[in-house]
C-alpha cells in the first residue's frame, strides 16, 4: 500500500483585512500518496495558492493539520520549518523564480548548497539534474538566455535537488506555450513515477487535469465534491 506523503486535515486559513474576516481555506482535508499527481483547480481567489503555501510550510494555517511524512508541521515553530521545506518539499513557480545573476547550473547548485551539498559534488549533481530535464547543453546559460520552457525545466531541476517527497507546483505551464507546457507536464508526470514523489499542481490548465491522478476542485476556500473529485 502506498504511504501518504502529505495529509491535510480540516485546514482553515482566515485573513483579517481591516475589520473584515476573509476565509481563504475552509475545512479542507485530503491526502496525497507517493507517486500520485494531484491537480488543484478552481477559479481565481478560490484559495488554491493559499492552500499550496500552507502545504509548503511557508504560511501557517489558522487551524487544522498538515502532516508531511508523518511530521506534524502545524505544531512546529517558525524556525524549524525551513528544514522541513529543505528536506521534503520542492517548489515550481509560474514565474520560474530563477536567480537572474546565476547560470542554470548555479541556480540548481544553490538548492543543493542549502541541503549541505557543496563544492564539486554539488556541481556534478546539479549538472546531472539539468541533464535529466534535458538541459545538459545549457548549464552555463543565464536565465535571460533561456526560453520559457527551458527556464521552467531549470526550476524543475532545482525543485528535484533534494529528491523531495512532495513537489508543489504553482501554475507550472501558465507562462508557457501549448507545446512547451505539454512537455513540462509530461516531465512532472514522469518524475512522480520514477521518484515516487507526490506532485500537487495548482492550475487552470485542463491538460493537467487530463494527466493527473486526481483533481481537487476548490471554490470559496472549500473543496467541492470532497477529496476525490476525479480519478484518472
Amino acid at each position, binding site marked *: 500500500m502506498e504511504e501518504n506523503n502529505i495529509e491535510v486535515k480540516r485546514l482553515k486559513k482566515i485573513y483579517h483585512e481591516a475589520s473584515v474576516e476573509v476565509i481563504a481555506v475552509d475545512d479542507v482535508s485530503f491526502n496525497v500518496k507517493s507517486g500520485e499527481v494531484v491537480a488543484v483547480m478552481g477559479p481565481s481567489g478560490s484559495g488554491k495558492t493559499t492552500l499550496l503555501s500552507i502545504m509548503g510550510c511557508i504560511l501557517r494555517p489558522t487551524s487544522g493539520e498538515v502532516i508531511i511524512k508523518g511530521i506534524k508541521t502545524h505544531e512546529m515553530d517558525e524556525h524549524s520549518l525551513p528544514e522541513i521545506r529543505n*528536506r521534503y518539499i*520542492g*517548489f515550481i513557480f509560474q514565474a520560474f*523564480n530563477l536567480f537572474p*545573476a*546565476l547560470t542554470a547550473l548555479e541556480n540548481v547548485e544553490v538548492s543543493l548548497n*542549502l541541503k549541505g551539498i557543496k563544492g564539486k559534488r554539488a556541481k556534478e549533481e546539479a549538472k546531472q539534474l539539468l541533464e535529466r530535464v534535458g538541459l545538459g547543453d545549457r548549464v552555463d546559460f543565464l536565465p535571460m538566455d533561456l526560453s520559457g520552457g527551458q527556464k521552467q525545466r531549470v526550476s524543475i531541476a532545482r525543485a528535484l535537488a*533534494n529528491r523531495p517527497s512532495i513537489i508543489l507546483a504553482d501554475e507550472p505551464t501558465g507562462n508557457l506555450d501549448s507545446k512547451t507546457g505539454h512537455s513540462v507536464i509530461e516531465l512532472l508526470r514522469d518524475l512522480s513515477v520514477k521518484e515516487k514523489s507526490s506532485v500537487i499542481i495548482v492550475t487552470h490548465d485542463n491538460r493537467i487535469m487530463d494527466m493527473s491522478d486526481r483533481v481537487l476542485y476548490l471554490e470559496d476556500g472549500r473543496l467541492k465534491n470532497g477529496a476525490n473529485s476525479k480519478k484518472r
Partner: protein
Amino acid sequence: MVSIARKNLFHDKIRFIITLIGVTFSVVLIFAQVGIYLGFMQNASIVIDNTDVDIWITSKNTPNFDWAQAFPETKINLARETKGVLHAEKFILAWGVMKRKEGGTEQVEIIGYNPNSGIGGPWNMKEGRASDVKGGKHIIMDESAEKKMGEFHIGDEREVMNQKVKVIGITKGIKSFTTAPFIFTSYDTAKGLASYIGQDSTVFILVKTDPAENIHEIVQRLNERLKGVDVYTSRQFSNRTRWYWTVETGMGMGFLMTAFMGFAIGIVIVGQTIYTSTIEHLREYGTLKAIGANNLFIYKIIFEQAIVNAVIGYIVGFVITQFLIKGYEKTGLAMIIPNYLIVSVFFLTLLMCISASFISIRKATKIDPAIVFKV
C-alpha cells in the same frame, strides 16, 4: 558554494559602481580630513615633540607653543635649584620678519637655543650642524621655507629684523603650524634679533629631570617655587597646544564634522543602494526561503554584499588617498595617515556598510511568503 551576494553585485554593474563610488568617496573624505588634521597637529607641536626635555615652563596662561609670552629669565635659577631637576635651559620663540630674496618680507618664527647643549635645537639636519649657529649671526632654515623665502643655500646672507644673518644649516620637514618658517639660531642671536623680548626675559625654560624622580612631583615643586609661570610636562604642553588649535579655534571640530559627514554620506549611499537592491531581489529572497533557506542565510547574503562593497571601496579609496597625499605634499603641507588610521578607517568602512544594510535585513526577513507565487 555559489555566492549569490557576489553574483548579484557583479551582475548589476552600474549599481555596484555607484555603491563603490559612494564608499570610495567616504573613505577618501575621512582619510583626507583626518590626515590633514593630523598633519596640522603634528606641525602644531613639532618642536615640543622633537625637543629632548621633560618639562616646559611657560608664562602664565600660554595657550600654545606659537603664542608664548616672555617672563623673567632669572626664574631659571629657581628651576635649577629644584629637587629632581638635572638641567634647565632658556629657550626663545619670537616672531620676526625676514626679507625675501625677490623683495618684500615674510613673517618668521625665530627659535633661540643653547648651541652648546643643543637642547631645543633643530633635528633632521640636511646640511650643516645644529652647533654651527655659534660664533655669529648664523641661522638654520628648513628647506620648506624656499616656497616663501625663495631659494637659499649654505653661506647665503639674509636679513631678519633688519639685521644681516648667514644661513649655515638646512633642515628637512620642520614646518610650523602657522606656516611662518622656523629660523633656528643661538639663544643670544635670537635675543638680538627679537629685542622686544627684553634682555632679562626668556620665553620658555626647558627642563631635564632625574629619571629616578616622579615627573609630576617635580612639576608640582616647580609650580610651588616659580610663581607667575605655568609648568607642564612635554606631553601636557604638546596636548595643550594641539587642544588649543583643535578645540578652542574650532578647527578640529570642522575637520571632525567633515569626516563625520563623509561617514554619513557613505551610510546613506550604501544603505540606499543595498536597500534598492534588496527590494529588487525580494522575490529571490522569498524563493530562497521557500526552497529551505533560513533567515541567517539571507543575512549572510546581504552582509556579504555590504562587506564586498566595503572592502573594494576601501581599497580604491586608500589608493586614491595615496595619490592625494603626494599631491598635497607638493603644496608644502602634510597629510599624515598613520597605521592606526589605516586600520581604523577600514573597520569604520565595514561598520558603515554593515550598518547601512540593517534596514535591508529587516525588509528581507519580513517578506510576505506569498510573493513567491505572484507573477
